[in-house]
């Protein structure tokens, strides 16, 4: 007998794990029907505007809000003193690292509004609440600040000079953390014994995050609870942090996040504005709304990156990597963000090892306070940087030693037979075939045909270069995640989980996981992710882990639904529970064709059509917590080719090939989209984005007139391939892809630029390779050749 065509099979061919399903939310967002925080309004709401420090550093003598209070429509105005009097806690760094000597890092308290001193241009000192946003803006201008300016420091190196202005009394040398990792003696010995040492001064330029959606928040105080609508990266952890600052019980705090228009790490933090808004909402008994202006967000949103290192690689005569050493400074900005030191410390050695067998790694970072916007996580949060430092060293070593960069990498790559592989930073890689990816990328990029393409470029007067970026990222550390499943009254099925989509499109792949595991129809599935009242756990999104964490939570929750369903189905089908099997969305009596679909069973339960004994489950709903989803190790090889016009210094990425291992790919369409975005963000940092302060600490690149973002016409044609080896660390076998684009792009693009510029004698081009800097590097190389 032919197997009858099964609807579930057909549906899985369209919507199951591995299918390129387009995003459920696209029609909603594209039609402008999304609900971002600024779309949220309440009757009688008031509007807040913040007053920010115009000075980078200064002593606050007084903040006079009286003139503002006299302005039309103004309801209230608050200063730092008001928030201190209310007794809130300060904003906290939640990922401190230990000092070199084991002592605690210096963590000065940050009140939500500056009290005694201002520490960067943009530091909030007061806010005004009025009946309209325009009235609040007018009144904010009337607030009189009496501030005595102090000298400012803006770069971490400058901050580390003797006699530099101290940002905090408790850190007279401006050093928050003198971080050390590695076995110094062994590393020194390896360098001493090395046949060759490659050394580069590498800059990791500061970037302004610039999500499309500026930050916004609406605060309420209702029924004795603080309620905040706000863009985040996960409401559960955000609620807990917020409750901590408010000194409230977590049950007294409700956080709601709707659509989010980009975050890249930035919106994960509890920002000072939110404390002010909640305070005002409580004091005034009315909702209070605030939406950032673009020009304000340049100084009110955390910035990313900002680290300068000396990177060194020790090699033996055959090119075996003996040790890598990365030492330098990173910028914390004026206050510690929640994750402040993580990116330039722990994540550098965790990710700097990459795909190689390098037995030793040392990282020394002096994390410095400066009078600049605080630094926080930015797409990759140290992962792209760690890989970038290493990959630049490898290309440079290959050039210096006259070894082909592909063979040098192969010689040192960890082989599949070495899995599980324990790295010198105590990470255990479970899987990956790094050399196979490199070889495939080399083939896909037509590595062999490069000489011909270079000749063609030369005919046009252009320099051409190619660069490899082999990367491996250690995704976020283990956290709990909720997998809730609800069979709704209207016949829909709701997934509840605590990761949060800020543009990625979680709804679709999560529904693909559920439809695959439970056979419920894809188009019936909804997602709740942004309501802290609905969550019993939630690790949030960050560190490329959502599909691993929520995917695992949903899979396990589906198992629980099946367990419950078998019991209930045994009553519905009048059979013993041990005889009930589950397959393709149906509970059947083993060996018969009698069965009931999971949706039908849910409907029966709803309609009360089943008589169930006391001890039987009464619904299929599940509240599950997936415990400590471990990290995974997404990896890949990207190869970029660039053309540089030596007359103008303009660089174009003309070819971009990527071969990635993201383990099980739930939705190849969305994964490719993540890579396009990640690579473009990498290209942005590599070619154009930079942040400059003047000597007074004023942000020079404070608008899009001076801050360059990558545009559509900077985008190369991408070639995208997947070569997955499923992860062994999570039930789906997924590895996470959100940050990989940056990790591949920084090294491949910069290696390509350096390859092109080597021809004209430029030794090392740092990011960003702006036209000016490239042209100047070429002029300098010419001048030194002539000398």
């Amino acid at each position, binding site marked *: 007998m032919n197997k009858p065509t099964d609807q579930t099979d057909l549906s899985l061919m369209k919507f199951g794990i591995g299918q390129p399903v387009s995003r459920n939310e696209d029609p909603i967002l594209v039609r402008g029907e999304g609900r971002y925080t600024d779309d949220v309004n309440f009757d009688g709401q008031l509007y807040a505007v913040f007053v920010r420090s115009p000075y980078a550093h200064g002593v606050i003598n007084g903040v006079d809000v009286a003139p503002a209070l006299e302005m039309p429509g103004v309801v209230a105005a608050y200063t730092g003193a008001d928030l201190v009097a209310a007794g809130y806690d300060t904003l906290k760094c939640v990922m401190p690292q230990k000092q070199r000597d084991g002592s605690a890092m210096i963590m000065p308290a940050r009140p939500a509004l500056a009290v005694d001193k201002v520490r960067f241009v943009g530091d909030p000192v007061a806010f005004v609440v009025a009946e309209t946003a325009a009235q609040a803006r007018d009144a904010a201008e009337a607030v009189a600040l009496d501030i005595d300016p102090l000298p400012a420091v803006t770069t971490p190196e400058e901050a580390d000079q003797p006699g530099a202005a101290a940002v905090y009394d408790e850190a007279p040398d401006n050093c928050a953390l003198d971080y050390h990792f590695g076995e110094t003696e062994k590393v020194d010995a390896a360098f001493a014994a090395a046949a060759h040492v490659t050394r580069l001064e590498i800059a990791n330029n500061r970037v302004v995050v610039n999500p499309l959606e500026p930050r916004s928040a609406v605060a309420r105080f209702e029924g004795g609870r603080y309620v905040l609508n706000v863009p985040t990266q996960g409401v559960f952890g955000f609620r807990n942090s917020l409750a901590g600052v408010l000194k409230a019980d977590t049950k007294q705090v409700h956080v709601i996040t709707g659509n989010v228009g980009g975050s890249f790490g930035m919106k994960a933090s509890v920002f000072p504005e939110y404390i002010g808004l909640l305070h005002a909402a409580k004091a005034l008994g009315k909702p209070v709304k605030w939406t950032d202006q673009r020009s304000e967000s340049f100084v009110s949103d955390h910035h990313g990156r900002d680290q300068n290192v000396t990177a060194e690689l020790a090699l033996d005569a055959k090119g075996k990597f003996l040790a890598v050493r990365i030492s330098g400074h990173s910028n914390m900005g004026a206050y510690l963000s929640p994750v402040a030191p993580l990116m330039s410390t722990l994540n550098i050695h965790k990710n700097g090892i990459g795909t190689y067998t390098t037995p030793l790694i040392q990282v020394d970072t002096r994390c410095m306070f400066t009078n600049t916007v605080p630094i926080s996580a930015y797409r990759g949060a140290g992962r792209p940087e760690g890989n970038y430092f290493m990959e630049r060293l490898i290309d440079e070593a290959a050039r210096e030693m006259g070894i082909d960069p592909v063979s040098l990498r192969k010689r040192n790559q960890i082989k599949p037979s070495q899995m599980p592989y324990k790295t010198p930073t105590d990470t255990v890689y479970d899987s990956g075939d790094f050399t196979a990816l490199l070889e495939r990328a080399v083939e896909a990029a037509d590595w062999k045909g490069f000489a011909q393409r270079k000749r063609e470029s030369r005919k046009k007067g252009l320099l051409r270069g190619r660069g490899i970026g082999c990367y491996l990222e250690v995704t976020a550390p283990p956290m709990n995640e909720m997998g809730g499943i609800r069979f709704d009254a209207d016949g829909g099925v709701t997934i509840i989980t605590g990761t949060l989509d800020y543009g990625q499109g979680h709804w679709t792949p999560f529904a693909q996981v559920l439809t695959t595991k439970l056979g419920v129809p894809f188009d019936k599935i909804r997602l709740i992710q942004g309501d802290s009242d609905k969550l019993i756990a939630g690790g949030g999104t960050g560190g490329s882990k959502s599909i691993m964490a929520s995917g695992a939570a949903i899979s396990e929750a589906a198992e629980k639904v099946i367990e419950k369903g078998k019991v209930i189905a045994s009553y519905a089908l009048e059979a013993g529970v041990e005889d009930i099997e589950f397959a393709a969305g149906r509970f059947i009596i083993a060996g018969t064709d009698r069965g009931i679909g999971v949706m039908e069973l849910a409907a029966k339960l709803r309609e009360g059509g089943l008589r169930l004994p006391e001890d039987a489950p009464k619904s299929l709903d599940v509240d599950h917590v997936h415990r400590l989803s471990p990290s995974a190790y997404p990896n890949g090889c990207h190869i970029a080719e660039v053309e540089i016009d030596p007359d103008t210094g303009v660089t174009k990425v003309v070819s971009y090939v990527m071969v990635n291992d993201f383990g099980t790919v739930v939705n190849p369409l969305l994964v490719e989209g993540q890579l396009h975005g990640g690579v473009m963000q990498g290209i942005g940092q590599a070619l154009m984005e930079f942040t400059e302060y003047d000597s007074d600490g004023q942000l020079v690149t404070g608008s899009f007139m001076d801050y360059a973002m990558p545009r559509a016409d900077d985008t190369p044609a991408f070639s995208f391939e997947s070569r997955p080896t499923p992860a062994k660390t999570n039930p789906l076998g997924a590895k996470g892809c959100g940050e990989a684009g940056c990790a591949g792009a920084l090294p491949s693009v910069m290696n390509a630029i350096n390859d092109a510029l080597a021809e004209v004698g430029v030794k090392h081009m740092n990011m960003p390779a702006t*036209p000016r800097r490239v042209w100047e590097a070429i002029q300098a190389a010419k001048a030194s050749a002539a000398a």
Partner: protein
Amino acid sequence: MYAFSYHQPKTVRQAASLLAKNEDGKILAGGQTLLPTMKQRLAAPPALIDLGKVEGLSGIELKGRSLVIGATTKHVQVATSEIVKQAIPGLAEMAGMIGDPAVRNRGTIGGSVANNDPAADYPAACLALGATIITNTRKIPAEQFFTGLFETALEPGEVIVKISFPIVSKAAYAKFRNPASRYAMVGVFVAKRGSDIRVAVTGAGSNGVFRATALEEALKKRFSPKSLEGVSVSADGLNGDIHASPEYRAHLIGVMAKRAVTAAIGK
């Protein structure tokens, strides 16, 4: 934005008298420069006099040996006009390089010229082509019109009505965009009318648009990019900022001039 009064005159005469009546009032054309500065509270004109409803201010026509463009003609109209493409193709191309489609669909030639942003494109075209700026009261040669950074010869109450471009035999514009704003970091417009060769540079001069006489002299010998080889432009009087030093700008003037000449010859 601060509060302001809004006026919609029907004629240039009404516009001029409204300007006279409203001290510190401003003309509003495409609003692509004025409105952003008002939104950022950098400008606070108490009155806006919108040219949008003034009859006869928009349009492109040939008059004898001149191309005449009305003040409120939008960049997109100049960029796509068959008349402009026939008469001075380099001018149409220049208009097509301004900003982005949204800006080109609102911004006007009169607004751009009146604003005289040191990084704007039209001032270079006007200067190189020897345009005449025609106002409600007089005719001002481009040579005398652009007087400094955001400064022009316009008197208070004076309204630009149209701009007249003599038709030249060859002209082209080469623009090196500022990587962030995409305004001209160095823009070079070259034009050749008989033996009269003009090279106007925008985006680079610390006093706004100017003519690069050294390059003009070199091109007079032969209108060819080769003539510019080895001719160096002085960095004196050029802008330096985070995107380009005066030296880099000086170098780019030479490169862009060569590219503009090459393009002009190809037309």
